[in-house]
């Protein structure tokens, strides 16, 4: 089974670390990079070439929607999963419109993050939660 490279854009250190820890529990997944800002993400992704990017909706220099739009513009095949602590119901619509492949509420991330990543990579799911 081929390993999937996963890139994390999260400004909260504890969350970054926990995302990486949880993802690393899945042998097929490999965290190829973790950044805290949109700018760092755009710079690193070019060299790391991840299969999937986890984008936090709240970022210090931009927000997850805009970063998704930029990444989608540059990397049409890149898988993008947006995570958010906000509960707005139409949030998922905005995320999908921006070009993301999936959406997970941070509250449910402990339960849905790994399944959602798997489904996106397998091309079955574009959003959850």
């Amino acid at each position, binding site marked *: 089974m081929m390993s999937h490279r996963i890139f994390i854009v999260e400004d*909260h250190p504890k969350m970054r670390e926990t995302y990486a820890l*949880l993802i690393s529990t899945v042998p097929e997944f490999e965290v190829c990079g973790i950044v805290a800002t949109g700018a760092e993400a755009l710079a690193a992704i070019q060299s790391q070439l991840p299969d999937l990017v986890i984008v936090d909706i709240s970022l210090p220099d931009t927000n997850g929607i805009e970063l998704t739009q930029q990444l989608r513009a540059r990397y049409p095949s890149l898988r993008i999963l947006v995570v958010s602590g906000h509960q707005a119901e139409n949030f998922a619509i905005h995320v999908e419109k921006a070009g993301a492949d999936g959406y997970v509420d941070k509250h449910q991330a402990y339960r849905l993050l790994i399944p959602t990543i798997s489904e996106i990579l397998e091309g079955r799911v574009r959003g959850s939660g």
Partner: protein
Amino acid sequence: MPGVSTIQSSRHRHVDDYTRLLSAMPAAVYTCDKDGLITYYNRQAAEIWGREPELGDPDEKFCGSLRLYYADGTPLPHEHTPMAAAVKSGQSFRDTDVVIERPDGSLVMVNVNVSPLYDEDGAFAGAVNVFTDVTRRRRLWQEHRRQRDSLERIISEAPAAIAMLRGAEHRYTLCNPAYRAVARGKGELVGRTVAEVWPETGNTITSLLDNVFQTGKPFHIAEMKLELTRDRGLEDAYFAFTLTPLLDPDGHIEGILIMAIETTAQVLATKQIETERALLQAVLAQMPSGVVIAEAPSGKLILGNEQVEKIWRHGYVPAGDIEGYRAYAGFHADGRHYEPEEWPLARSISQGEVVQDEEIIFKRGDATYGMLSVASAPIQDQDGQVRAGVAIFSDISQRKQAEILRLGQLQVLEMLVKGEPLARVMEEIAHTIERQSPDAVASILLVDEDGRLRHGAAPSLSNAYNEAVDGIMPDANIGTCAAAVARRETVVTRDIATDPAWHTLSHLPLDPTLKAAWSMPIIAGDGQVLGTVGTYFREKRGPTVQERQMVELLASTTLVAIERKRAEAERDELVAALDRERAQLRELAQTLEQRVLQRTELLHKLAAALNLAEQRERARLSQVLHDDLQQLLYSELMRIEVLRRQLSDEQQAALHELISGLIQQLEQAVNVTRTLATELNPPQMESSSLPECLDWLARHMEEAHALEVTLRVRDGADLVAGEARSMLLHLVRELLFNVVKHAGTRQAYLELSTQNGLVVVCIEDHGNGFDVTAVTRNGSDQGTGLGLLSAEDRLALIGGRLEIRSSPGQGTQVAILVPAQT
């Protein structure tokens, strides 16, 4: 001529001689034959007849005259004449007067004498008439007779009793009816002597008569009383006598003419009048009014009763004429003297004027003044001629003074009530004093704070004097007013010129006609001397009892005036002080108001800042919850998942319960923090419209608190913004929480509208409700947990308010009203 009694038949020879003789006779002669035909008449007869009848004419029988009358004027036919009678009877007729009317109308009285004629045979042949013109003689006699008749009539009709006496024994020779009347009951007087007729008079009359007879001097007695025996016996009789000696042609006294007028009736009447007059005088003397009677037209006073002296306080001056009335000093109200002819009595006498109740100021004998009320009327005789005048007067001074005093007091009281200045009130008091006595001049002085006397009112004193007096110190030994104040009692100076107390004041410019003064101090209830009421007199005198009483009254009125003015001054001072304090308070209030305004503004700013800070703090807390606490919780959940993934199946089975419990608790913690974060700072508040925010809130309440909220938006969508809107939304949320917590219902209604420039958000439920007054009365909603009062306070900061309608069991309706921002 009667001498011719026969006619000779040989007349032819002598006829011419007879004819000549008859013609020359100084009388008228004619003859008639026995048939009455005229046979002859001479020239004188023709002259008297005034015609010449034909001799022997049968139409001219008995007389040649045209017409005849008796002496008394009765017509006398010719056939009734003496001639006719003689011819018919053959008798003679002598000395008969008849009147002849001539053809020219003139009348002639003739004296006729007729004698019969016989021829030589002695046969009756006719008659001869000799007549003479007696017209003049007759007239003289008639005149004489008339005069005599007249004299007799005069004497007989004379009211005077006239008698003529002859000889030294005084024998009556003539008495007229009046005299006989005097001597009624005495029988025939003529031929008797006076002594015989009047024995009862003794020698009273005879001695008088003897004297006149002997001396030849007439004697007159104006009134003589005689006791005469008359019809009713002895009576008193009164006479006025004139005894005049009668002289014979040789100048010897031959008798006395007595003229007597009996005046008994007049004398008795006069005596009656005198009796009545005495009675009248007694009545007049006792009358309570003064009465004077004066003759007209002179004005001489003929009677004055005792009251005249009592009223005038000087002797009765029996003025001899109107000019003499100057002895009585009267004055008009304006001070002018009453001229003699102005007195009512003088006017009644000279103009017949009836005067009623004329008031006259008068000066009495003791130099005091008073007021008379005088009535006067003329006394007229039967022809309307003014014969006298009577004046009745009484002293009305006391009544008048009381009247003046009463009027003065009324005037003063009215002025006090009207709040007139004290100077004007005191001036009126001074005038009242001066009106009482024409010689009085009033002066009111006031005591100032330094105890000096100050000018109050003295309208009749000179300014120079008032200024000189102003400021003098009270002194028991100086002047009258200064002494009265110092001695605290009434002081009288009867003669300023000689009073030692006035020597030190001799330099003052006091009117020299003011001779005396007296002064009464004005003493207040607390014993303080406030001033003095002084009166100067133009006479050297002291005050009368009435004047004292009057000034006492006026002094008390003055006291009232002064105390009233003092009270007013104190009141004014108080009012001024109050005004000052009020002004200070107003200033203070303005300052305070300003401060309050400043504080309020500050408070508003603070409130706004606080509100903003609250919002920020909410946002910050929300952020912290979201960015930190929630992230940690998410992280911990994920770590549990990491842990679970690393456990074996057995381990997982053994720890399943524990792990599930951990997850459940963490999820619960996440939900709490999420709700808390949302409620602290709803995510859409800043970017959405008011209806959108309310819509979110409604849904949030249902999701988070299971409260079904029905929203109705009428208008007012975007009329509230900024902090006001955030405050409004927080209030709405709090009120919806109240429904959740207290209303006992799961349904609420939210309505947005505008009303009179206000945006109104109404929150309604049909739940438990509560007692609004109880909440309001407590002044606090502590215990209810409604937060309504603080909500009201917060709303007030942005100019809004809260309207609450609720009662237990009837649900609650709360309206939030905030000014619309247009």
